[in-house]
C-alpha cells in the first residue's frame, strides 16, 4: 500500500537530487495540491465510475533505466524508418534510444530540462502546467510534482516536418511493479504542422502504472494530427491526460484507440482560445476481459466561431467497462460556437458495463450544440446473413465489428499508422 508518506519521501528526495530552479517551485506547488486533494476515489467529482485506488495497493519501485534498442524493436510502428522516434523509459525521456531524423530547423526535440535552461525557457515557464487550469485532481498534481526528465518538442514557424513523430512509452516491469510519470510539452508555432502518434507498452509481467501528461500549444494556422494508441497488458494501468490549447485559429484532429489494458483513464482537454478554431476528436475502444476504459473529453469554448466535432465509438465484451464523459463548456464570449458530440456503444456481454454521459454547460446564447449517445447490440440480422453463407459465427462477428470500427479508423490519416492500428484491431477482435 502506498500513501502520501510514500510519495512525500520520494518527492523530497527528488527535490534534493534535482535542485533545478526551473522545476523545484513548480513541483512544490503541485505536490502541495496533491497533498490536499489526495488520490481520487469514487467520491471525487469526475471519478465516479473509475476507481484507481486498487492501483496503489502495492509498492512501485522506480524502474531501472537501461533498455537497449533491441528492447524497443518489438514496439516500433511499421514505417518507423521514415519517422522520428522518441522513447520514454519508465517515464523518462531517453535521448539515446530516441531517433530524430528531422533537422532541428524543422523539429526541435530536447529534454524539458535542457529546453527550460535555453532559449525556450520563457515558453516553458509560460505553458508548462497549463493543464492545471482544467484539471484539479490529485493524480494530475502528482505528475506535476515529479516533473524531471520530460520532453520538449517544438515545431518552428511555417515548418511542416517531412517525418512524423512517434512517441513510445515503455515501462519495464520485468523486475518489479513499475510506475512512470512521463511529461511532455509540445509547441506548434504559427503555420506549422505535426503528425504525432503515441503508444504505451509494458515490458515484463508485473503490474505497471503510467500517469502521463502531455501539454500541447497550437498557434495560429497550425495543424495538429494526434493519434494515441493504447494496447498494453491486462495489468497495465494508465491515467493519460492530454491538454491542448489552441491559442490561435488552428486545426486539431485526434484519434484515441484503446484495446487491451487494465484500468485506462483518458482525459482529453481542449481550450479553444482563439476565434475560428476547428477541432475533431475521435475515439475507438474495443474492450474485453476486465479492461476498464474511461474517456473524459472536455472542450472549453472561450472565443467565438469555434467548431468542434466528437465521435467516440466502442464495444464492451466480457467483464469490461466503458465510460464516456463528454463535457462541452461554452463561455459567455464564445458566441456562434458549433459543437457536436456523439458516443455510440455496442454491448456484447451481459457482464459488461457502459456508462455514457454528455455534459453541456452553455453560457452563451447563440450557439449550436448537439450530443447523442447510444448503447446497442450487434445486428442479429446481419450476423445471420453472414452465417447463412457459411461464415462461422465468431468470424462473422469480427467482420461486423471491423465494419463498426471502420469509420473511426478511417480518421487516422497517416496510412502507416492506420495500417498498424487496423492490424492490431483485427488481431484484437479475432480473439474477442
Amino acid at each position, binding site marked *: 500500500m502506498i500513501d502520501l508518506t510514500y510519495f512525500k519521501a520520494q518527492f523530497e528526495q527528488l527535490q534534493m537530487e534535482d535542485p533545478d530552479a526551473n522545476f523545484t517551485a513548480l513541483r512544490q506547488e503541485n505536490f502541495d495540491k496533491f497533498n490536499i486533494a489526495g488520490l481520487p476515489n469514487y467520491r471525487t467529482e469526475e471519478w465516479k465510475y473509475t476507481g484507481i485506488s486498487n492501483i496503489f495497493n502495492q509498492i512501485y519501485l522506480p524502474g531501472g533505466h537501461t533498455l537497449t534498442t533491441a528492447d524497443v524493436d518489438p514496439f516500433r510502428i511499421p514505417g518507423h524508418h521514415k519517422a522520428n522516434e522518441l522513447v520514454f523509459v519508465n517515464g523518462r525521456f531517453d535521448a539515446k534510444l530516441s531517433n530524430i531524423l528531422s533537422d532541428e530547423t524543422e523539429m526541435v526535440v530536447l529534454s524539458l530540462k535542457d529546453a527550460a535552461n535555453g532559449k525556450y525557457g520563457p515558453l516553458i515557464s509560460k505553458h508548462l502546467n497549463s493543464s492545471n487550469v482544467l484539471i484539479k485532481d490529485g493524480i494530475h498534481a502528482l505528475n506535476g510534482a515529479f516533473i524531471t526528465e520530460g520532453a520538449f518538442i517544438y515545431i518552428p514557424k511555417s515548418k511542416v516536418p517531412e517525418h512524423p513523430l512517434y512517441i513510445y512509452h515503455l515501462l519495464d516491469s520485468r523486475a518489479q511493479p513499475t510506475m512512470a510519470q512521463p511529461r511532455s510539452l509540445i509547441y506548434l508555432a504559427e503555420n506549422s504542422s505535426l503528425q504525432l502518434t503515441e503508444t504505451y507498452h509494458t515490458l515484463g509481467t508485473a503490474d505497471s502504472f503510467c500517469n502521463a501528461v502531455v501539454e500541447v500549444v497550437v498557434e495560429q494556422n497550425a495543424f495538429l494530427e494526434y493519434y494515441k494508441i493504447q494496447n498494453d497488458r491486462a495489468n497495465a494501468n494508465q491515467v493519460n491526460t492530454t491538454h491542448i490549447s489552441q491559442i490561435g485559429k488552428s486545426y486539431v484532429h485526434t484519434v484515441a484507440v484503446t484495446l487491451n489494458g487494465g484500468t485506462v483513464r483518458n482525459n482529453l482537454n481542449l481550450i479553444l482560445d482563439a476565434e475560428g478554431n476547428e477541432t475533431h476528436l475521435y475515439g475507438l475502444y474495443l474492450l474485453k476481459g476486465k479492461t476498464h476504459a474511461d474517456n473524459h473529453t472536455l472542450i472549453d469554448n472561450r472565443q467565438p466561431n469555434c467548431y468542434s466535432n466528437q465521435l467516440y465509438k466502442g464495444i464492451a465484451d466480457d467483464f469490461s467497462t466503458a465510460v464516456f464523459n463528454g463535457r462541452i463548456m461554452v463561455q459567455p464570449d464564445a458566441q456562434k460556437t458549433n459543437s457536436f458530440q456523439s458516443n455510440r456503444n455496442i454491448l456484447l456481454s451481459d457482464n459488461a458495463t457502459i456508462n455514457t454521459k454528455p455534459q453541456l454547460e452553455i453560457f452563451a446564447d447563440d450557439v449550436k450544440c448537439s450530443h447523442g449517445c447510444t448503447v446497442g447490440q450487434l445486428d442479429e440480422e446481419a450476423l445471420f446473413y*453472414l452465417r*447463412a453463407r457459411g*461464415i462461422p*459465427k465468431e468470424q462473422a462477428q469480427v467482420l*461486423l465489428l*471491423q465494419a463498426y470500427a471502420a469509420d473511426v479508423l478511417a480518421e487516422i490519416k497517416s496510412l502507416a499508422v492506420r495500417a498498424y492500428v487496423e492490424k492490431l484491431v483485427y488481431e484484437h477482435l479475432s480473439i474477442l
Partner: protein
Amino acid sequence: MDMLSIKNLHANVEGKEILKGINLEIKAGEVHAIMGPNGSGKSTLASVLAGREEYEVTAGEVIFTDKELLEMSPEDRAREGLFLAFQYPVEIPGVSTTNFIRAAVNEKRKYHDLEPLDSVAFLKIMKEKMKLVEIDQSLLSRSINEGFSGGEKKRNEIFQMAMLEPKMAILDETDSGLDIDALRIVAKGINKLRSPDRAVLVITHYQRLLDYIQPDYVHVLYNGQIVKSGTRELALELEEKGYDFITDEVDSTANNL
C-alpha cells in the same frame, strides 16, 4: 437420392405456432415450387431450414443429404451445401461484398478440406459468374447490399448462389419486384445450377418465373401446412383461379371436423 426430407415439422415464433406439420420430400435433380397466400409460413419454413434462431422447432425432423439438418449451426448448413436466397436481403454497411463472398467461398472450401482460393483463382471464378448473372463489378465493390435497389439485392443473392454452387438452393421470392430482364437472369441462374445432383426449392407468387424454370412439383402452403401438391399444371390452375378453390376446401374440412 433424397436431398431434403422434411417430416412433420412444427415451429413457433414468439410462442405462436406458424408451421403446423410440414411434410416435403425433395430428391436430387428436382425443382420444387412452393406457393401460398401471404403470411402462410413460406418464409418461416425457409428460415427454419437455414437455421434462424428466433424460430423454435417444436416437433419434426429434417434430413439434408443424410444429415440431421436441425442439429447443425447455420454456417454448417451453408457449408454442407444449403443456400437460402433471402426474401429481404439485409444491408451490411462497412463489409465489402467481394471480401464477404470470398470469405464465404473459402470457408466452405476449408470445411471440405480444400485449399482456399487465391486472389487470381477467385477473381477468375467471380468474373465468370458475374457474366452469368449480369451483375456489375461496381456493385460488388460496395458494402453488402448497402443502397442496392430491390432488384440489385435479388441479383446479388443469385450471384452468391452461383459462387457457392449449393446442393440445395431455396429461393424466397427472388422473383418479386424484378423487371423482365432481371427475371430472365434469375431464371438463368437457377437453370444453370440445375443438375442431377442438386435441387432447388423456389418460393413464389407468380407463374412467370415458373414459365422459365419449369418446376417438377408445385406445393401450396396454407396456414402452416402443405395442403396441396401437384405438377406444374397446379401452378397454372392457381394462376387462373386464385387460392380460394384450395383454401375454401381446407377451411370447410377443418370446420366440419
